[in-house]
């Protein structure tokens, strides 16, 4: 197992570097040079050269990258043009909201999705399975922004039960969670069903049936125990999905998370914030993948012994 973990970390580090290089490249591709932005109308050749030297822009690109990287590692992600706050401050302050939303969504996804998946698999081939499948495709095809505004219309505008915007109480998080969960649980239920059915097709299940075990016993002791193992990976990908889905949903509900920050910054051309957010999310996803992979190795004994 440790051999695998070390190998996995060996993949992680270059990927992390690759991410920083890509983000740095994106940050330099952004239109308009910072010098022009600062100087505006007062730009003359000499002033530009002066500023460039001051900002370190006249140095070769790899030196600029190293300076940038050093800044990142010390926590300096730049300054927001719009709010005039440090990018790191903005991200740090809003991170808790996004995480809250992502966790709630993952919880709802997991509970609803996995239960429906288990029911689907148990009753595979029957009408219940077919109906659930239809419902899944329904949920999966729903654009999150449609679900969001429908919920706002019904629960906030017409019924006046739940708040449509902002954050601050549990009530505020309900609608955004349900919006993302609509798609996520459908997806999760399909994955669970697929995984369980694949396990059920294997020989050891046939053996169990031949031994005379009842269907319930087979499902619970054999199929689910094995089939739910990839669910760990699936829940993790559900978490990542929730993070990804948060952009639209947070924007619709004006929920003050990082997703909303990102979309606002793109609309307002606040480049520093966009780059900071991108870097943050990429690294977060990378780290989540790493944790999931290691967790999976820990849970699945087969992978552990593969190296021997």
């Amino acid at each position, binding site marked *: 197992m440790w051999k695998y973990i070390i190998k996995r970390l060996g993949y992680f580090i270059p990927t992390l570097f690759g991410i920083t290089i*890509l983000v740095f490249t994106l940050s330099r591709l952004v239109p308009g040079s910072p010098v022009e932005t600062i100087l505006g109308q007062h730009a003359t050749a000499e002033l530009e050269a002066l500023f460039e030297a001051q900002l370190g822009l006249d140095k070769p690109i790899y030196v600029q990258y190293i300076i940038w990287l050093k800044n990142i590692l010390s926590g300096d992600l730049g300054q927001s043009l719009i709010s005039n706050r440090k990018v790191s401050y903005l991200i740090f302050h809003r991170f808790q909201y996004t995480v809250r939303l992502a966790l709630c969504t993952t919880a709802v996804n997991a509970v609803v999705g996995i239960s429906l998946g288990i029911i689907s698999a148990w009753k595979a081939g029957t009408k219940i399975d077919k109906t659930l499948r239809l419902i899944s495709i329904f949920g*999966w*095809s729903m*654009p999150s*922004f*449609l679900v969001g505004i429908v919920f706002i219309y019904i629960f906030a505008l017409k019924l006046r039960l739940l708040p449509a915007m902002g954050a601050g109480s549990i009530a505020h998080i309900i609608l955004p969670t349900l919006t993302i969960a609509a798609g996520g649980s459908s997806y999760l239920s399909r994955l669970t069903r697929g995984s369980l*059915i694949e396990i*059920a097709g294997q020989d050891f299940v046939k053996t169990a049936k031949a031994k005379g075990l009842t269907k319930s016993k087979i499902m619970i002791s054999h199929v689910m125990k094995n089939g739910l193992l990839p669910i760990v990976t699936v829940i993790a990908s559900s978490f990542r999905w929730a993070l990804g889905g948060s952009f639209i949903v947070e924007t619709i509900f004006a929920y003050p998370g990082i997703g909303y920050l990102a979309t606002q910054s*793109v609309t307002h051309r606040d480049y520093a914030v966009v*780059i900071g957010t991108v870097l943050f999310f990429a690294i977060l996803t990378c780290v989540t993948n790493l944790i999931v992979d290691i967790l999976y190795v820990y849970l699945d004994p087969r992978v552990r012994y593969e190296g021997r």
Partner: protein
Amino acid sequence: MAKKDFSLIFALAILLMVIIFSIFPQYIASEYFTHVDLSKRLSTPSLENIFGCDFLGRDIFSLIVWGSRIALLICIVPTFIGAALGVSIGILSGYVGGKTDDVIQRMVEIIVSFPGLLLSLTIINILGPGLWNAMWSVTIWRVTGFIRITRSLTLTMKETGYVEWAKALGAGRAHVMFRHILPNILTPIIVQLTFSMPGTLLSVASLSFLGLGANPPSPDWGVLMQQSRKYLVYAPWAAFTPGIFIFLISFAFNTIGETFRDIVDPRAKYVRI
């Protein structure tokens, strides 16, 4: 069986309707969509305006019909270009293996670490908003998806008899890749293609909804939703209707994809305990 057949027929009907809308919008929608009638602002659905009018008094039904062309364009272009690039790179990566494979896989992993929408947002940040920029930004995500799938399929195919046989007969690498491996992995790729289309539509529509995709007064459905969102209280149908159509196309492609996958991969259907 009955339920599934019904939904498949429904899906095909929807697709047919949208295709007809795209080819002959001028015969179906009674007016060109830019006709503005301010006296009818936000009017409720009526016999004359089937889905009502939006905030400028434009007939929503016309807007949707004229927008279907854009919607289908969005579905098709990024998916097919993504597939063409992704499959080629994937086969190359899977078959050639070694250092090339490693390098390509690293790059794919790096791109995949970025949440799809965020990557699109950044690219639009650089290129500027617009329908085509939005589509290109989504294409990159599609390419990586296809690379991954094609590569794993190629790896499986590499071990089969066809490839050994062809190599024994002296076939060159390009020949093996495109004459042997590609035709055999085509079916799962077509399934993936069918599933990619709704994803692409939803992504680009999301970008339009955020104001970063197509520009008004384009009849793109995402843009329509974004514009009508302000008037949700007065005229919810103005915002809901384009969304429902996006959902319908998505649903149609997903159902067709699922049915297709069942035909191609019957394992998931028949196993019972």
